[in-house]
């Protein structure tokens, strides 16, 4: 007999429907799967056989042929276990097949017939809705994730028998609360800016960075609180829109990083890969390319601590994604584009020993060592980092001091500034100041007389380069937006000039 069950498979960030066709005929007992299954799919034969037996169903001693259509795309993952098992049961009339074609089925089986959680449920649920199916059967642990998508029935099951019972009309799943858009406001974070005592200058700088989506480099000796404060950057970034959340959750779902029973991700991600990371780990890759750290930091923060310790080629890989906001990975089997709009936050010591520029400690590095240390970061990468700041070590009095502005207050200011930018750049194909090209800088960062005078003076006295000049204008634009001023004033520029190029700190090394 023949039975057909619907399921889904993932390709990159997208998903496509898969028809699982089961044919059972007489002949020598066999169990074959065709339709480009990968190893995990082929192994599901053993899990399915044991699960059917252990849930007190009969496994047919016949010739079983299984086809996964469309047959020309490779299928990955163990989530075909449950549809295959249901297909076999349907083909041998051990369950009702009436509702079977209205639902897609996703789930991995254990040998005793329990259903285990799988990755990529969210993008599959989106595809299932788009293809007009009535609902989806998922492992109970993935129930919240699938429920993010409105308009389809999500049936969470814990075992093969429960799934069979559902199709026989004997099992009613409990209704799941759909996550509403307005519930986004109640995002809770682990940290808050008010917990960071002192470091007023750094906090201000981060506020500017968040408001204009500027990348930022922090230079300071170990223990100056760079990592602690970097972790809190997501708390001052604007709240994610539903679309942003959905996109991010899709990525995490595919990467298998969603915890069980979690719905939409509403916190912006913070990724801090260790500096031993490989090229593939950073941008993504593999036989069928998987998302890398830059994609996992999509809509959030990618924090690179000890920047010069990262292999130079890994850092160079960041250049193009920083520019484009997406990365295309081409491999023999597939070419996949992943989004990666992230804010790059880096931290580094001023020199290998950490004391360069400290008037009270002797730096034990030779100028050559310092130059070599700095030369690991290429000019083109530094060009994409608008704000560069020296971080002072935390003092005891700061630890005891009163708490300061909290993240929410800062976030509101950031959101207001972002709104101004969105409005201004309508139809320009950019949405924040960091994306301004030299042409657009000319258009949107006009200076008044005082401003021009200041910049002229600064250009000569501080020996600015043309690049540094543009960066300062972009940052000044953001400062003006935070100040809710339509034009850049002299004091905006004066402030921006203090967050200027890293070069000035190393002038002692050069003549």
């Amino acid at each position, binding site marked *: 007999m023949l039975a057909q069950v619907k399921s889904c498979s993932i390709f990159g960030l997208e998903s496509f429907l898969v028809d699982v066709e089961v044919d059972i005929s007489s002949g020598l007992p066999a169990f074959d799967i065709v339709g480009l299954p990968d190893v995990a799919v082929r192994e599901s034969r053993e899990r399915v056989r044991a699960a059917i037996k252990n849930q007190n169903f009969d496994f047919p001693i016949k010739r079983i042929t299984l086809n996964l259509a469309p047959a020309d795309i490779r299928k990955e993952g163990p989530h075909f276990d449950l549809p295959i098992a249901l297909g076999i049961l349907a083909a041998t009339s051990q369950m009702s097949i009436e509702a079977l074609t209205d639902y897609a089925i996703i789930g991995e089986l254990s040998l005793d017939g329990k259903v285990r959680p799988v990755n990529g449920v969210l993008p599959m649920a989106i595809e299932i809705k788009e293809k007009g199916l009535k609902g989806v059967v998922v492992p109970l642990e993935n129930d919240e994730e699938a429920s993010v998508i409105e308009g389809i029935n999500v049936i969470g099951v814990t075992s093969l028998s429960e799934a069979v019972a559902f199709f026989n009309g004997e099992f009613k799943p409990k209704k799941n609360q759909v996550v509403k858009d307005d519930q986004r406001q109640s995002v809770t974070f682990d940290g808050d800016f008010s917990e960071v005592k002192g470091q007023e200058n750094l906090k201000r700088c981060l506020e500017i960075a968040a408001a204009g989506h500027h990348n930022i480099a922090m230079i300071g000796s170990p223990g100056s609180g760079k990592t602690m404060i970097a972790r809190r950057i997501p708390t001052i970034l604007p709240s994610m829109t539903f679309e942003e959340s959905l996109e991010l959750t899709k990525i995490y779902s595919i990467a298998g990083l969603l915890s069980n029973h979690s719905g939409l991700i509403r916190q912006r991600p913070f990724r801090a890969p260790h500096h031993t990371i490989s090229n593939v780990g950073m941008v993504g890759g593999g036989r069928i390319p998987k998302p890398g750290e830059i994609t996992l930091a999509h809509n959030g923060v990618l924090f690179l601590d000890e920047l010069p310790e990262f292999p130079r080629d890994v850092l160079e890989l960041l250049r193009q994604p920083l520019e484009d906001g997406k990365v295309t990975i081409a491999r023999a089997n597939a070419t996949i584009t992943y989004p990666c709009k992230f804010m790059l936050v880096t931290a580094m010591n001023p020199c290998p020993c950490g004391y360069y520029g400290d008037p009270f400690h002797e730096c034990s590095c030779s100028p050559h060592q310092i130059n070599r240390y700095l030369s690991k970061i290429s000019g083109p990468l530094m060009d994409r980092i608008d704000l560069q700041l020296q971080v002072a070590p935390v003092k005891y009095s700061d630890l005891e001091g009163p708490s300061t502005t909290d993240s929410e207050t800062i976030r509101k200011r950031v959101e207001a500034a972002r709104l101004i930018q969105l409005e201004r750049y309508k139809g320009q194909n950019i949405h924040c100041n960091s994306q301004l090209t030299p042409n657009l800088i000319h258009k949107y960062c006009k200076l008044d007389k005082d401003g021009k005078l200041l910049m002229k003076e600064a250009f000569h006295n501080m020996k600015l380069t043309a690049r540094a000049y543009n960066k300062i204008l972009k940052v000044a634009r953001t400062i003006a937006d935070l100040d809710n001023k339509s034009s850049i004033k002299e004091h905006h520029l004066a402030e921006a000039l203090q967050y200027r190029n890293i070069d000035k*700190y190393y002038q002692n090394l050069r003549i």
Partner: protein
Amino acid sequence: MKEDGLLLVALNLIPDLGSLKIQSLAERFKSFSDFMKAKPNDLLEIPGIGEKICEKIIAYKSKIEPHREIEKAEEQGIRIITLFDEDYPEQLKQIYDPPPVLYIKGQRPVLDNNAIAIVGSRKASAYGRRVAINFAKELASMNINIVSGMARGIDSFAHKGAIDAGGPTTAVFGCGLDIVYPPENVALMQRIIECGSVISSFPLGVVPLPMNFPARNRIISGLALGTLVVEAAEKSGSLITAEFALEQGREVFAVPGNIFSPYSRGTHKLIKQGAKLVENTDDILDELYLERIHNRDGKEEFDLNKLSVPERAIFELIDYQPIQIEQLIEKTQSNSRDVNAILTRLELKGLIQALPGGYYVKN
């Protein structure tokens, strides 16, 4: 070039032959052709020449080509002056063991000026940088030749200060003049050649080996009336230069620093041993009986009344001791926004200076 000069150039090409030995050899043989005919026995007669050195000289005799060396130097715009030449720098001639041969590139006449050597640590602090630049600037503007070694740190800043004032400066190399060491100073060397000179006692192509530097330091102190040590760690090449200066009967000056700073150990040691403590260029000029040519301070005083109230408040907090921006924010009870803007204005007015590490000092 005369025969005796040629001989000095030739002898200078033999490695490890000190200037005193070269001089005795030159006295004995008088000309290059005579020297080429010398037998080992002739060499051994000269006091100070033992068997080992004799063998070495014999081995090198056939290899050295002083004519070729002079040609090569001329091709690169380098002049060779020997002890027998009229225009060998007078100051240097007076020391106990003047280098027999000098390679010179740039303006030869600056070597006749009164000269002060400014030396110090390769890893300079911001304070040392300022001292070196300011002293060099002021002295050079009085047409005093600033002699240093073009090493990293204080040496380079001393040259830079002199160049900024458009005054004379001389860099003494510890390697052949065709090699730039440290390599990043290529541009600096070019500027030194424009307004001063670079000199070396080493033949072309000699690499900067550590053992060459004491010989170079001897020339630095020898060219100058006095040596100013700006910053030096406890064990520093600058202290060797100071020692040479004393041996040569020249003055030693030292700039004091922070007693906690490791870079001041060496200079404080010198002061304890009797070096003159120097606070300004007058201290140097008085000691050397030199006339001051210009006013001490070329720059006009900035009228502090022109500053706005908040600008003034912040400026008054910034002293010669580096202070961090976080402290400024805390002390003024102001916010980072305004403080940053004010710092830029003060910086542009030349009243303060931004240092590495996010520190600021008064200029």
